[in-house]
């Protein structure tokens, strides 16, 4: 396992070599005799209410074109940037979560190119002095640690779409100027699966600290992947960058496709040339966008409007002290509560789709619901009700956890009614289904009364149901009297059925024994 105790400052190449030599080669049946090296640049949109350098609102997917655009976003003359401190705080949370070394001084630079979705003709980024350097992300399944090279703040671009039929380009600047965190990994991954786990773990981490939705499908998290292939024991091969992958599945397919392409180039005796490639989602193969020779000169320049970002210890410590719980910490805590790995997986996977609040407000997902329900209750009982009953019934109804209509008070009270024997377990399940189908603010105890689901207590009403069962099934009753106790199950079942679940099975069995076998109930 690769542990990175010291934040890395040296250049990318040195670290690539270092990482390369530290991982032992493991043969992959898909490409025996070849080693694959993967590094990933992730662009994660910062979930701040307003943009990185302007007061315009950020946009959720589906916002109409150019709804959130300020004069600055459209690069009007005379406008100036103003750094949004919330974006800085959220980047700091991310850096701390990735054990990255927050830089006391970072600077902003302009990266120049002409494109219609970039109105100023440059993007403000942190080329020379990023906000954080180094760091590590542990992947629990692969059991590896992926080094983080650096985290930088930058502006997102607008969107331009080409309408081929009308031959018109449409430009939408709602996204232009939204804050991004560019998170650059070390080339520490050795397979498409490790790459996938890295991205998923990073998504979970960003959501847990509330810094990004991390949603690839909606474009709030985008990946550029660097892939190279070499013979084990030899130095890394020439890398190619695959740009703009917008799902984990496509990213894995793109890496595999690129690995096969490199191998076939190398096998034919040629050498791989360094280039930037795209991925065709229909054919599942990568294609060349531009070669190294065609690489644009971005004419990086320190931004003369933005003074260096100076972060004092007080500010960094304030963020560190208020850090939300990270995914690893949540798992460890749930394990201590006695939850099974499967239950933990279920809770945390629901949370991974949970929406993150603006400006670092932490989303209230399944784990938070569980935590609140567990106060004063047995966590194992709570997780059973949540995973088996509540989530199961929501799934049957094609609903997500987000659409769960049961308040914490309702769900907690339902669990308590069953635990205290006020209603039976099966009545509890019936009641839950009823509450899902008829959402209301009524408490379970009132509904149980209305639906006659309150448990039959030992005594008259239960005895009466038992007597009816004995009368209805005389042969079975006789068999029990003769000592064949197995037949009791059939009689108990009859009682349960006629009680519509309000009877407790054990109580019913005891009552039947008492009626059929004198002294039997005590044996």
């Amino acid at each position, binding site marked *: 396992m690769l542990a990175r105790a010291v934040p890395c400052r040296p250049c990318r190449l040195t670290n690539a070599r270092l990482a390369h030599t530290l991982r032992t080669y493991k043969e992959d049946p898909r490409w025996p005799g070849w080693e694959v090296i993967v590094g990933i640049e992730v662009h994660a949109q910062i979930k701040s209410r307003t943009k990185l350098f302007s007061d315009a609102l950020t946009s959720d997917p589906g916002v109409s074109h150019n709804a959130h655009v300020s004069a600055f976003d459209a*690069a009007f003359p005379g406008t100036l940037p*103003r750094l949004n401190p919330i974006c800085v705080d959220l980047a700091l949370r991310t850096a701390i979560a990735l054990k990255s070394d927050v830089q006391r001084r970072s600077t902003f630079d302009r990266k*120049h*190119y002409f494109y219609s979705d970039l109105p100023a003709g*440059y993007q403000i980024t942190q080329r020379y002095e990023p906000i954080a350097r180094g760091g590590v992300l542990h992947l629990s399944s692969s059991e590896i640690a992926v080094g983080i090279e650096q985290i930088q703040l930058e502006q997102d671009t607008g969107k331009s779409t080409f309408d081929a039929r009308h031959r018109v380009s449409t430009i939408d600047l709602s996204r232009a100027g939204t804050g991004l965190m560019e998170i650059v990994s070390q080339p520490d991954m050795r397979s498409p699966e490790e790459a996938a786990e890295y991205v998923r773990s990073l998504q979970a981490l960003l959501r847990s600290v509330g810094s990004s939705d991390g949603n690839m499908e909606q474009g709030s998290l985008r990946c550029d992947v660097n892939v190279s292939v070499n013979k084990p024991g030899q130095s890394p091969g020439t890398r190619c960058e695959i740009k703009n992958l917008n799902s984990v599945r496509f990213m894995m397919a793109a890496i595999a496709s690129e690995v096969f392409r490199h191998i076939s180039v190398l096998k034919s005796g040629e050498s791989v040339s360094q280039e930037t490639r795209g991925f065709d989602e229909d054919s599942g193969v990568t294609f060349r966008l531009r070669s190294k020779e065609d690489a644009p000169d971005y004419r990086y320049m320190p931004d*003369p*409007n*933005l003074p260096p970002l100076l972060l004092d210890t007080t500010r960094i410590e304030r963020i560190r002290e208020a850090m939300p719980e990270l995914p690893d910490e949540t798992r460890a805590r749930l394990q201590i509560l006695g939850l099974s790995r499967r239950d933990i997986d279920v809770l945390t996977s629901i949370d991974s789709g949970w929406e993150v609040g603006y400006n670092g407000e932490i989303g209230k997902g399944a784990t938070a619901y569980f935590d609140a329900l567990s106060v004063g209750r047995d966590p194992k009982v709570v997780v059973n009700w949540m995973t088996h009953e509540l989530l199961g019934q929501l799934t049957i109804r094609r609903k997500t956890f987000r659409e769960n209509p049961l308040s914490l008070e309702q769900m907690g009270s339902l669990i308590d009614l069953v635990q205290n024997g006020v209603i039976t377990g099966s009545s509890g399940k019936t009641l839950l289904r009823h509450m899902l189908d008829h959402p209301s603010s009524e408490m379970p105890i009132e509904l149980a009364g209305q639906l006659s689901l309150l448990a039959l207590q030992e005594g008259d009403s239960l005895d009466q149901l038992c007597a009816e069962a004995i009368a209805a099934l005389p042969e079975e009753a006789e068999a029990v009297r003769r000592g064949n106790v197995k037949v009791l199950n059939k009689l108990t079942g009859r009682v349960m059925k006629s009680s519509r679940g309000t009877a407790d099975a054990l109580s019913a069995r005891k009552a039947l024994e008492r009626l059929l076998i004198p002294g039997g109930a005590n044996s």
Partner: protein
Amino acid sequence: MLQSCPKLSRSCRRPSLPTFLRGLSTGAELPWQHAVRTKNGFVNAIVHTASTRTNNADGPLNDVTVAVKDNICTADMPTTCASAMLRDFTSPFDATVVRLLQSSGATIVGKTNCDEFGMGSLNINSIHGPVVNPHGATSLEMESARHSAGGSSGGSAAAVAAGMCDAALGTDTGGSTRLPASYCGVVGLKPSYGMISRWGVVSFADSLDCVGVFGKDISSAQRVYDVLSAYDSKDPTAIPEDVRARARGACSEHAATWSSPTSSDLSGLKIGIPQEYFPSTLNPSIISSLRRTIRALQRQGATAIPVSLPNTSYALSAYYIIASAEASSNLARYDGVQYGLHVQRPPDALATDPASIYAHTRTAGFGPEVKKRILLGTYALTADAFDNYFLQAQRLRQLIREDFNRVFIVPDPMAAGPIVPTSAEGVHVLLHPSAICTAPPLEEAARTAGRIDTYVQDVLTVPASLAGLPAVSVPGGSVDESGNGGAGWPVGVSVVGQWGCEEMVMRVGKAIEDVGKESFE
């Protein structure tokens, strides 16, 4: 290559009289309105006239008329930056300085002509045509006798000199306020960098751009500066209040030794004369004019001390690298997509990428001087040139700043770390000629435009810009008959102080103004 400037008299666009001026041409017409009506036709200083008056009758500037350079955004008038690129552009917002003028009751009379995007020293790079220096000019004068008003804020200087307003806003990136002030015989203040908000000021080179203030005298410029000098959270380079207060404190402390509002005694004032500011190209008659000013100040008790700023010779190169690099970046936004000029690409032209489509708009929209600087700046930022040009220029800029810190008695309030104890040897301000010559004739200017010697003039003004220091050009009399060619034309004297020492610089400026008056009397 630079083309000759448009012919003056016929090609210039003349703004029509504003509504509030019509009907006032008889009887109730105020002197400034008379000046606009009678002189702007040939001076060509004002290119858009204000149609509405926002007046705060109780404001501190309620009796002041101000013109605003056409690269400062106004919501109710166009902001063309004298460029074909923005010929029909009106900003959706007012610059902070415009808002401050309005809320303090000033009457904004209109927008003034300038060099395109502030690039030029003669105000001949303008879609509105050149500005004619109003000094001694009449509408009947021959074209050959017309002189430049200087640039790039030539319209603002000329408007004040012609009496069309009491004060005017310009911008100063490398001398664009001080030079036209010198040529036109008015006061031109370039404040310390970061003192006046740049929100709404169209960027030429952000790290150098300052809003400049012109006045018919020191007191009018001071009144306007006092209103505009305020922290603005919309400008990320605005200097915060605590630093301003610290600088004011240091400045007052050092000014207290010689300055008294009630007395003209200057005993204790130490004036540095930087030896590097007297290049061989300096017109001898300008030196004799400066000498007269120094002698007059000495008579009031001031001490003149020769000083050296050894890195001055690098200033010009450093300035043109930094200013052009930033300009190439700042002007990348003019692509004809969101606003401004848009030129359809010819049907047979390449449409492979946005850059090749923008090229048609940018080729048509920018004038030759702007194109030249964009190309220079683009080159300075390329990967191969960046270290040798851009970074080298930044190092020189630091050396120039250190040169100034070594000669001033007032410590640099912007310096990091403990403030170095001030040297008793230090001077309060520096004094030097504002320009190497008087206003050149426009015909000659057009002929020599783009030649390397047209940039040599900047050697006197760019060091203060690179160091972010306050500098004011004050009329220092006019060149006497002994001068060759410039007889009777105004010359300016520049006073430069430590960062934040506007008060000191303006007091010395006032002393120069006063001794000038005495010598005329």
